[in-house]
């Protein structure tokens, strides 16, 4: 029952949200709804018996599709991430004003509902459904409230990902035809007897969809533009939670479905991911726009996770699980800061900023902590993830891990460069009148920073949460 609630609370709240006209009211409504979702998620996951974590209802019996949702370790974690992110985002951006606020928050809630659906569905068709559904609200959010080039950029993003998901649909169809009982259930999907030659094509159909979503080099070019142009709250959803869809889906659907093809193509994919990591890191060094910089940094981080997924192994897979959560909250923190800078100073250009630490010391401290989390300093949450990820990669291939390791250094270069250009040095014309970060954002960031450090010091809860799904995965392989 819990997963159903998680799906429908934001959905219903979103639909109702369309009718709210006033900014504060809409914001309050969204916050309340998302907090209720969060409470449901937390209580449901930690206080309810496992029998409440599953729900199955007949949907389209004639073609073997059912409304089957469940919470296992991996989905619990991503559900938590989704549930936590939304209130954080709503509170942090509470000072942003939108035209038609009701619609804005409603669409955000709908996106949340879609994301929840992606993470909890155990039926391929249902999964595909939510996969698309999460995209539509984001399309509208970005196109209506985005930056200058929003329409073209969002459109590109939309079509790009849509191409991927359509290919995935073909893949789903293909596997469906080959299931023994003609069913879309995850269990049937993992139980087909595809020959190794038959796996290749559907493997790539799935993989391309997820690779675009993650994104893996060279399918990433939609991402920096989309992140840059989307309204920051949406960018947070996009990079904090939505890119995890690709990673999640790769683990949930690609690995168990196509074990042989995964093995066969692991090497090229891992290499591609690692190239992407280094490539994105190098480009990030040259970025002048904070949002684009964070975007490329995110590509680099996701590249590592993608590589670890296909490299396989307990450590790597566990690392991906942990890191999905960690990267989610860290990057949301970074976006909140980017938003704060942009909204108070009206620019995101590194070259126009400087010396902000004098004017906004609190913001500086929060930023520095998150920046170091971004480069996976030990005792921040990202370290745990990256440690495990690199470990997994190392077990797969030493040289690739070493090459990927270069991104650790490059990451330090661009992150510190950003910190330095924004906060250190003399004040610039733009920052001369800067003010401290607003208190909504501040408190959200403080929560995030506490989480960053707490999970960095004691990551075990996160690991234990996802342990079962990793083990299950290894059994299947």
């Amino acid at each position, binding site marked *: 029952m819990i997963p159903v609630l998680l799906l429908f609370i934001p959905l219903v709240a979103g639909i109702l949200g369309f009718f709210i006209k006033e900014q504060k009211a809409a914001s309050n409504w969204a916050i309340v709804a998302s907090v209720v979702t969060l409470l449901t998620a937390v209580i449901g996951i930690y206080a309810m018996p496992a029998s409440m974590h599953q729900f199955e209802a007949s*949907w*389209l*019996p*004639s*073609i073997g599709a059912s409304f089957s949702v469940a919470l296992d370790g991996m989905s619990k974690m991503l559900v938590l991430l989704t549930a936590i992110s939304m209130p954080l985002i709503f509170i942090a951006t509470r000072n942003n004003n939108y035209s038609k606020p009701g619609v804005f928050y409603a669409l955000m809630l709908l996106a949340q509902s879609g994301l929840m659906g992606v993470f909890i569905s155990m039926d391929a*068709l249902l999964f*595909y*459904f939510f996969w*698309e*559904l999460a995209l*539509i609200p984001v399309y*509208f959010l970005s*196109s*209506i409230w985005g930056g200058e080039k*929003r*329409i073209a950029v969002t*459109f590109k993003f*939309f*079509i790009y990902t*849509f*191409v991927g998901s*359509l*290919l995935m*649909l*073909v893949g789903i*169809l*293909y596997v*469906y*035809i080959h299931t023994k009982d003609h069913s879309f259930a995850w269990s049937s999907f993992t139980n087909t007897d595809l020959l190794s030659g038959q796996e290749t*094509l559907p493997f790539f*159909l799935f993989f391309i969809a997820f690779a675009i979503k993650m994104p893996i080099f060279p399918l990433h070019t939609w991402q920096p533009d989309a992140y840059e142009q989307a309204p920051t709250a949406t960018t947070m959803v996009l990079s904090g939670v939505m890119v995890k869809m690709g990673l999640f889906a790769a683990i949930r659907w690609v690995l168990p479905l196509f074990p042989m093809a995964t093995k066969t193509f692991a090497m090229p994919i891992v290499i591609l991911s690692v190239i992407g990591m280094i490539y994105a890191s190098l480009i990030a060094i040259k970025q002048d726009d904070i949002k684009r910089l964070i975007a490329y940094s995110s590509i680099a981080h996701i590249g590592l996770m993608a590589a670890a997924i296909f490299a396989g192994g307990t450590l790597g897979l566990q690392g991906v699980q942990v890191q999905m959560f960690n990267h989610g909250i860290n990057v949301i923190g970074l976006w909140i800061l980017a938003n704060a800078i942009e909204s108070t100073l009206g620019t995101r250009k590194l070259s126009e900023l400087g010396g902000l630490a004098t004017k906004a010391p609190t913001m500086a401290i929060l930023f520095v902590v998150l920046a170091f989390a971004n480069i996976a300093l030990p005792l921040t949450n990202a370290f745990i993830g990256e440690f495990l990820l690199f470990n997994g990669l190392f077990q797969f291939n030493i040289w690739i891990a070493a090459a990927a390791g270069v991104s650790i250094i490059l990451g330090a270069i661009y992150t510190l460069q950003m910190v330095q250009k924004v906060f250190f040095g003399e004040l610039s014309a733009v920052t001369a009148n800067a003010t401290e970060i607003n208190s909504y954002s501040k408190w959200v960031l403080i929560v995030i920073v506490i989480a960053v450090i707490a999970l960095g010091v004691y990551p075990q809860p996160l690991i234990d949460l996802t342990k079962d799904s990793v083990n299950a995965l290894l059994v299947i392989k």
Partner: protein
Amino acid sequence: MNAIIVSALLGVVMMFSGIFTTNKTIIKNIATVGVLVLLAANLMEMNNLFSFDINTHDLIVTQRYGLFFNCIAFGATFIYLVLSASDITEVGVNAAEYFALIFFVLCGVAILSSFNGLLMLFIGVEILSIPLYILTGSDKRNLKSNEASLKYFLMGSFSTGVMLMGIALMYGATGNFGMVHSSGLRGAIIAAQQPPYLLVAGVILLFASMSFKVSAAPFHFWTPDVYDGAPSVFTSFMSTIVKAAGMLAFIRVFENLFTVLGPTWHIIVDFAIVSTLLIGNITAVFQQSVKRMLAYSSIAQAGFMLFALYANNTEIAKEGMLLYAAAYSLATISIFAVLIKLQDYSLDGFNGLAKKEPVLAFAATVSLLSLSGIPLTAGFFAKYYVLAGALQAGGALWLIIVAVLLAAVSVYYYFRVIQAMYFKEGDPQTLPISGGFKAALIAVAAFIVILGIWPSALLSWLYF
């Protein structure tokens, strides 16, 4: 038989109603009620409550599938009339006659859903086509309408000639027009072991002419011009209900022949599907007029429907065909209903519609989403079913990949309209819009979404 008889009678009724009254509202209402009567009659036959008992000598065979299709077609017509009947009366002075012609077309639809033999196919196709030539040209002083009508007529007649030649050759090879399973064409083909040359030539010609009717490439050329030139209300009708009926006829003719005709068939169908999807989708991209864009999009949608043909006889494809007909008709009728209310059919004419007429914009958006096959709308399941059917029938995966890639292209042009409505500034001029119209639009949108969540709502009726 009910549908055929009642629709013909209703046509006559409409003809006479034009004599007794000139009040357009009354005529309109009679027509709307008439469709309901037609629907009721059809439902009665479906549920074995009442039907005309006529010995058709196996020329017409009513099956649940065809009757169900009739329901969809008549239901779509009902929605069409609710949304656009008042616009039909505005096209010209002969309001009653237009409705009469629409009912005659519905008679053709009913024949096409139940014919059993090439003779009835031919007659059905003609009953379907001839009123359309007239409806296309009904805006008499509009040169575009004239041109469309003439083009449609000439090319339609030509394709009739081709079809008849095909039928003649098939007859020559088998000595039979019938489609009754063992003793008809199929039996003759099976008996011949290897399909006779004449038969194949005939089938190809028949295939070409049926492709023409459903505007499948490379026989689609009339479609953009005719849909563009015809009065928008009739384009809406032609491109939905009529096209779906044509597609059904196409499938019914070939579903029994395919399996025995050998693998080469698939090459030709592949060719038709790919070229239809390609031309429809690619050409639509750069259209500036939304109406013409929808014309190309209807070609593209036909390409998808052809998958149901490709998947001949699989259960899922047959269901998909019905779902596709319903989804596509609903969406297109609704988008055309919105289009008709706009003065400017160009893409810029839609700019800022969401601000001025949010309901229209919303309904149009749902329709466009459905046309592009986004989940949660009926269009998704429609596409899904036909593709699944094709795959189940052992279809080539590459064909389906091509199809979905081109579906992604279709998103490009459908979403340009959404962009214009929601993200661009403008002041679109609209005709007066009534509250009822808006309510109806919302209802249609809701219906699209319901079908998109739970297609069984429609399909399960097929089996009760």
